[in-house]
């Protein structure tokens, strides 16, 4: 199907939506053709979510209009949008873990058919679109990728004309992404339009026919992403030239952190057990630990930060056993951490930046003398972090929750980096952070390593790991693979290291096809 031959499916004209203090969408116009895969690109807060919520009937626009297949389209609620042929797969799934796939799908339907009939239809759709899924399995037993397939199949059963996908690949391994893309291409070939929201530029270049780029609520460009480089797209998104993190040639020094046979049973029933984790980290080395969320990342960080205590000898810092040491004892020795969750874990939401700077810096910055906090020194440290890491805030007296995600993350990373750690462990350092802030954070990590510190970057973002890390290890169901050098490592190889327990290889696909008969329950 060529661009010109396409019938226009949805036209958006001058959509505007304002919230108190911010215009989320300002006069947004673009069109999507039938069978087109259209990317909606923008940083966090650019207005992507508001826009698709208006299309899906969750938010009503203040001004502007939409036309769907020649008829005015103003859905007052999602059911009206669904009736008109618009379906959406959200970033966060709304599934009940204790119910089976078919039962979950039935819950979302206005008039659900009988279970047996529905299961047959699910099996049919899953076969047609190459999305292996057993309708009788419990959702609780499914991987994140499989759960996403439940959501997609739920949408496909409505036979949608427009499928909206919000950051669909953030929870997938590269192999799962490949399967998803095959499905989406197949759908598009059948004439279904897809509105694909993402900030992963390479994916968009691989998949999408057209891209609309939003910045601060406005359409700043419409282009064919295949004709642009990822860098050009990023610069359109940010509206500025981006600095690529630069790294100096590093010669790894002596081993500073040694983990041997680290096994941790989780404190809560939903946690992941860490099994026999072993690694050696050298001075000046950046190790990337990849893996899909929920495979033990949080548990690994807690074991390293001292929130979880282990056998003393399981973790050694410069030869010294520290497995049973608390967080502050480890900080004193030079092991610092930055957890994933900014609000509530890395920082206290309602406390000021001065207080949040004090949170982890009392030891290395000498902010306590004789049991009393030296608040003037704490303020100076907070101001130093704010200035060095370009944290946008009216001042250090502001509550942490008032900062944007990117700014707070810069503050949290800066707080640790500026304490000159010997070993720094960061979990998802640029999760939910805009491109400019992410670049700054990655540069800070590389600079720190160049000064001789060892860094562990736990991240779901493989591009990020490839950008900053010298070595790579995959965390899968609480087990860590043997680290390998990132140089010369392909995404396919990484995907295989990550994929292990998820049953998502192409080979499994054919297998699943054969078994996806309704009676073939697992």
């Amino acid at each position: 199907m060529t661009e010109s031959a396409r019938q226009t499916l949805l036209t958006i004209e001058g959509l505007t939506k304002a919230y108190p203090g911010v215009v989320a969408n300002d006069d947004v116009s673009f069109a999507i053709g039938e069978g087109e895969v259209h990317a909606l690109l923008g940083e966090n807060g650019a207005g992507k979510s508001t826009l698709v919520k208006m299309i899906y009937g969750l938010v009503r626009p203040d001004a502007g209009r939409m036309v769907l297949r020649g008829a005015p389209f103003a859905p007052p609620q999602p059911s009206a949008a669904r009736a008109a042929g618009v379906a959406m797969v959200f970033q966060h799934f709304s599934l009940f873990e204790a119910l089976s796939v078919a039962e979950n799908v039935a819950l979302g339907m206005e008039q659900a058919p009988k279970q047996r009939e529905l299961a047959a239809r699910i099996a049919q759709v899953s076969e047609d679109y190459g999305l292996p899924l057993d309708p009788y399995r419990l959702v609780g037993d499914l991987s994140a990728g499989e759960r996403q397939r439940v959501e997609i199949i739920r949408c496909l059963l409505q036979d949608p004309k427009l499928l909206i996908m919000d950051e669909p690949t953030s929870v997938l391994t590269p192999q799962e992404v490949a399967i998803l893309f095959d499905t989406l291409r197949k759908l598009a070939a059948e004439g279904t339009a897809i509105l694909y929201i993402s900030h992963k530029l390479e994916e968009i270049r691989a998949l999408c026919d057209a891209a609309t780029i939003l910045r601060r609520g406005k359409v700043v460009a419409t282009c064919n992403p295949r004709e642009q480089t990822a860098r050009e797209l990023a610069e359109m998104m940010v509206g500025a030239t981006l600095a690529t993190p630069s790294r100096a040639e590093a010669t790894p020094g002596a081993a500073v952190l040694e983990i041997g046979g680290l096994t941790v049973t989780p404190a809560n029933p939903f946690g992941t057990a860490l099994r026999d984790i072993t690694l050696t980290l050298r001075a000046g080395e950046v190790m990337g630990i990849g893996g899909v969320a929920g495979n033990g990342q949080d548990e690994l960080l807690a074991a390293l930060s001292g929130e979880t205590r282990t056998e003393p000898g399981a973790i050694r810092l410069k030869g010294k056993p520290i497995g049973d040491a608390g967080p502050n004892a480890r900080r004193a020795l030079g092991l610092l951490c930055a957890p994933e969750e900014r609000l509530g874990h890395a920082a206290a939401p309602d406390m000021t930046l001065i207080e949040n700077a004090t949170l982890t810096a009392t030891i290395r910055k000498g902010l306590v003398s004789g049991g009393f906090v030296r608040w003037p020194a704490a303020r100076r440290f907070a101001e130093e972090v704010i200035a060095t890491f370009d944290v946008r805030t009216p001042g250090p007296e502001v509550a942490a929750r008032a900062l944007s995600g990117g700014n707070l993350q810069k503050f949290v990373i800066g707080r640790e980096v500026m304490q000159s750690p010997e070993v720094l462990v960061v979990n998802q350092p640029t999760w939910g952070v805009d491109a400019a802030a992410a670049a700054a954070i990655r540069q800070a990590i590389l600079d720190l390593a160049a000064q001789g510190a060892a860094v562990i970057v736990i991240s779901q973002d493989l591009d990020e790991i490839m950008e900053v890390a010298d070595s790579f290890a995959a965390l899968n169901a609480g087990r860590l693979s043997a680290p390998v050098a990132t140089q010369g490592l392909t995404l396919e190889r990484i995907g295989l290291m990550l994929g292990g327990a998820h049953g998502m290889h192409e080979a499994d696909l054919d297998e699943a096809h054969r078994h996806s008969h309704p009676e073939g329950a697992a």
Partner: protein
Amino acid sequence: MIRLERRPTPSRFWTGATPVLAVIATMIAGGILFAALGKNPVEAIRTIFWDPLFGQFASYSRPQLLVKAAPLILIAVGLSFGFRAGIWNIGAEGQYIIGAIFGAAMALAFYPMDAVIVFPLMVLAGAAGGLAWAMIPAVLKIRFNTSEILVSLMLVYVAGHILSAMAFGALRNPEGMGFPGSRNLQQYPAAHNAELIAGSGLHWGTVTAFLAVIVAYVVMQRHILGFQIRVAGEAPRAARFAGVNPARLTAICLGTSGALAGLAGLFEVSGPSGQITPDFASGYGFTAIIVAFLGRLNPLGILLAGLLMALTYIGGELAQLTLALPAAAIQAFQGMLLFFLLAFDMLSNFRIRIGRPEGAQ
């Protein structure tokens, strides 16, 4: 349509203004309540808030203000530590009783010896008693993760039974002709917590309460312990990440509030009350919870809140006497104060918007 919108940063103005607003709202709602009971609302409010300070019998009721406020402030300051950290000691009343029993027992053990050391030993015993009683929920929480709310509350009733047992048994006055109750410590000079200035209502308990306010203020604002308490209350995970040991914090917070409640009991039994009787417990430990929140868990706020609460106590008694208001109405009035305070509290974190509702999720 009225909507609530979360403020990015808590409003300083409303943090200070809500207690004032709560008092005013209590006066209005209380006035309606009194009017419904057939009393003149203006006169009733005036009797409660104005007469104890400036009325006909003010010279009698003003010292009473300090006598009533001291234990409330002392207990509430202790409770504020735990409440800030999310550790809920609801059993200060029990710790108050046990502190009084320990202190009185220490005095009676020395009776009738006249030595300067007796009173300081009583103070130590009172604090130790309250501390020990509070450590029961603390240890159970640390070891078995029990709810300190339930354990400390249930221990109040245990303490009440111990109090009766003591008044009828071990501590009963041998010269009391069989009446329940201990010797009156007011008649034992070495143990008597007398007024420091006659007719002022100022006794050692008042002095300790003021000291506690100052120490608590400094600890909360400047000391690392105060910082850890605040972090633990606002973001428990962040606190653990920052190296705060939850078990240690539980022990410190429950221990401090227990010791201060025990002290309040000791100063009461050796002073205004004078003896251990079956009805020694007067609800200070529960009212102090209201005082702690009314004072926004801030030591200086608690000082003012304690005085205000004491005023409603004395004024309430006065209203019962002069206007024949039922005691239940006075209690409802005091309850309204906490209710309004908690309700208006929302204004410091939210702003009210009036306008079209948003269709968003």
